[in-house]
């Protein structure tokens, strides 16, 4: 690979890892948009190609003050800060010189277009790879580019269902269907693997000078993200059963969600086999005068604890109802117990720990003022946090990007 590319230039101290990496994004779902966001967050220059009506996320909402408008969609903002927006009729992609010229300069093409849409638009990744041998094409599709299900349709819910992840999530009451865990996680899982594939391809290109086609299947990404379910099938060949807000397991287990005095919840699983947390828990209950018989010697024996687990759980339910979730969280953690408070999204903005880590970053959205975004989760000692650009207006950079492309040609 020629050092003439900015992505091959040496990094100077403080620069983000993907400084100089040029990305063209053809994404109309949270998977491709999240990958583009993560690449931008680590320094890449991401040009997002949007159809003249704008990406679907501009129409999805929620909207600022609930006023539907392509430049007020929080779904768009969330996934697209730090990118440049170019409005371009997708029908012109394969025929137009602009796309070719963009790809000439690009290091990575991010695509989450469906195979049927790619065919309709006349986009052939193999041909692109041939014409641009240094280009890394990262394709994210519902099921992958090949195979009997390649052209099937999906969504976040459908993807989670097909993968084996959804069946693990829901309530103890199985008259209630499995419940989708929130926040576009089939898409996000695909994005995480796509990011791995993209950097592996960048590293491989540093070695060989060649680009690559990375074919990411959302179905497989979610199917490899079921934690213990596959291993329960590989080894004892048993299926797991969903249980309210705790691990799906082959057998029922005790509840892990405890309601507190303020109506909020904490998550706590007592590992009975480990004597240390057991002693810490009994001391904690005893300090509140609520240990009752748990201080009896019999409980030093694991089997006795196991046999009386339901009784222990009842005492815990009462105990947690006497304190706020926040107090239970911090007091429990002070005793080295792995307790978690169930935060609502809005609680995070007030969190003292995150504040001290300067996790939320203000980005000025022109016309709207400061918006607080999570900072990229990768903290590198060599990198100084640069401020990220706000979410672009639809087509804000069309002239800047395509004008430059036209000049070059």
């Amino acid at each position, binding site marked *: 690979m020629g050092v003439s590319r900015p992505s091959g230039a040496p990094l100077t101290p403080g620069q983000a890892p993907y400084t100089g990496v040029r990305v063209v994004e053809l994404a109309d779902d949270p998977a491709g948009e999240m990958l583009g966001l993560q690449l931008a967050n680590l320094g890449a220059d991401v040009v997002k190609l949007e159809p003249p009506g704008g990406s679907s996320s501009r129409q999805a909402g929620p909207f600022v003050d609930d006023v539907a408008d392509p430049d007020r969609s929080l779904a768009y903002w969330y996934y697209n800060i730090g990118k440049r927006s170019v409005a371009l009729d997708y029908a012109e992609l394969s025929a137009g010189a602009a796309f070719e010229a963009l790809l000439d300069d690009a290091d990575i093409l991010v695509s989450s277009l469906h195979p049927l849409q790619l065919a309709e638009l006349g986009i052939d990744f193999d041909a692109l790879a041939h014409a641009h041998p240094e280009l890394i094409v990262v394709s994210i599709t519902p099921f992958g580019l090949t195979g009997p299900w390649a052209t099937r349709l999906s969504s976040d819910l459908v993807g989670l269902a097909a993968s084996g992840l959804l069946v693990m999530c829901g309530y103890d009451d199985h008259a209630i269907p499995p419940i989708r865990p929130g926040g576009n996680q089939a898409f996000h899982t695909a994005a995480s693997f796509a990011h791995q594939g993209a950097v592996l391809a960048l590293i491989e290109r540093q070695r*060989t000078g060649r680009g690559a086609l990375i074919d990411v299947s959302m179905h497989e990404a979610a199917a490899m993200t079921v934690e213990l379910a596959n291993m329960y099938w*590989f080894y004892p060949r048993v299926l797991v059963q969903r249980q309210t807000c705790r691990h799906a397991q082959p057998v029922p287990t005790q509840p*892990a969600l405890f309601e507190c005095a303020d109506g909020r919840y904490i998550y706590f699983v007592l590992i009975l086999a480990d004597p240390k947390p057991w002693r810490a828990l009994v001391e904690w209950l005893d300090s509140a005068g609520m240990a009752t018989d748990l201080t009896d010697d019999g409980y030093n024996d694991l089997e006795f604890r196991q046999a009386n687990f339901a009784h222990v759980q009842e005492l815990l339910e009462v105990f947690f109802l006497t304190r706020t979730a926040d107090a239970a969280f911090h007091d429990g953690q002070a005793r080295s117990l792995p307790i978690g408070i169930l*935060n609502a999204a809005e609680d995070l903005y007030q969190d003292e720990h995150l504040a001290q880590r300067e996790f939320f970053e203000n980005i000025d959205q022109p016309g709207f003022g400061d918006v607080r975004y999570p900072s990229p989760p990768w903290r590198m000692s060599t990198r100084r946090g640069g401020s990220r650009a706000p979410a672009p207006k639809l087509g804000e950079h069309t002239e800047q990007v395509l004008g430059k492309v036209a000049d070059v040609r």
Partner: protein
Amino acid sequence: MNSASALGDLRSDPDRTPGPRSGPLQGITVTDFCWMGVGSLATRLLADFGARVIRIEDRKRLDMPRRLPFYKGAGLRSYGEELVDPDPNLGGCFNNYNRNKLGVTLNMSAPEGRALAERLISISSVLTENFAPGVMEKWGLTESHVRELRPDIIYARMSGFGHSGPYADYRSWGPVVQAICGLSGISGLPEREPSGWGLSYMDNQAAYYNSVGVLAAIFARNRGAGGCDLDVSAIEAGIELLGPALLDAGVNGRSTRRPDFPSGNRLDHPAAAPHGVYPSTGIDRWVAIAVFGDAEWTRFVAALGHPDWAEDPEFATEQARFDHQDRLDAYISEWTRTRTGHEAMETLQAAGVRAAAVQTAEDINETDPQIAFRGTFFELDHPVIGEARFEGVPFQASTFEPDNWRSGPLLGEDVGYVFGELLGLSESEIKDLAEREVL
């Protein structure tokens, strides 16, 4: 198991002898202190794609995945029901998470053990760990000392809360991370307790983020950036995964504790309907259906054979369908209830409707034709477990592939190779270290 005798037994297996690796990460050596699912999974990707990952284990504090009861023929048993004295080489969870890695044991409480770790670090270009903050420092492996041992090293530190801030020392595992970062709270039916997650999703996702962090740092180092210290907090990764609900709270000030949130399987943004999980034949079997916009609705109605109820004005527009979902879902359930999830999926997909049977691990492993076609799972032999299945990589690259050379290491399997061939210790020195429980 005595490590000296294990060493003698294992050198005889040529199929398990380490050799040169292939893939983008060939030539990279990782000293890997990661453990538990989340840590092991983060460095597994590095091992899959060619890095020489040397996992360091402590015989006195066995890695949890070695102890979890994932055994062939174990029957119905929760992962909490461990055996009293489990065979560390029989655990399937460890095998799945640690394929393609080398395994050594090292007693870090012994000065000689720490000295050997320092020698390993000096021949490595990546150092990984996911202990509670302070453990590596207790062993003298501060960021500045590690950089003295190997100036260009990438020191990747993976934890729940990150290595600074008032809660840095707090304990966490996947479900605790999910609770704190908000992912559990945004999952469930309205006016009920959250249903959250039936798995440690954040053990998987934090692992993926940590793999990416190491890879990005390797890419930067190849461009002359030098080494770096990396601090990834699983909770912060989890917050990034919350998605637009976070901004709805932050910008619009809309509480996610409101009575109509979360909305279960329904979709508010965009307001799509039908969007749900419906009962099929069979016990606790379901099918997921998602219909976006009028064109998909038309195809959906056709696939169901134009039932009369579909003509109801209450279902005429997407907004109307969204507003009358309870009735709509009842009609759809009548249709789904008379067929299997897979039959419903086939009918609907053939008509161009987004639908999938709610599949189980059995479906994915045994009958899913797409997974089978793509070869996502693969098998490797293991000296104690026998042939075993592994979760693969869910992407295919045109110019490189995973280098699946070996199943997970037996406890201390590679002490001869790592301390002998890589560090140059003699056989008698290694034997002596093992006898004195330094290894």
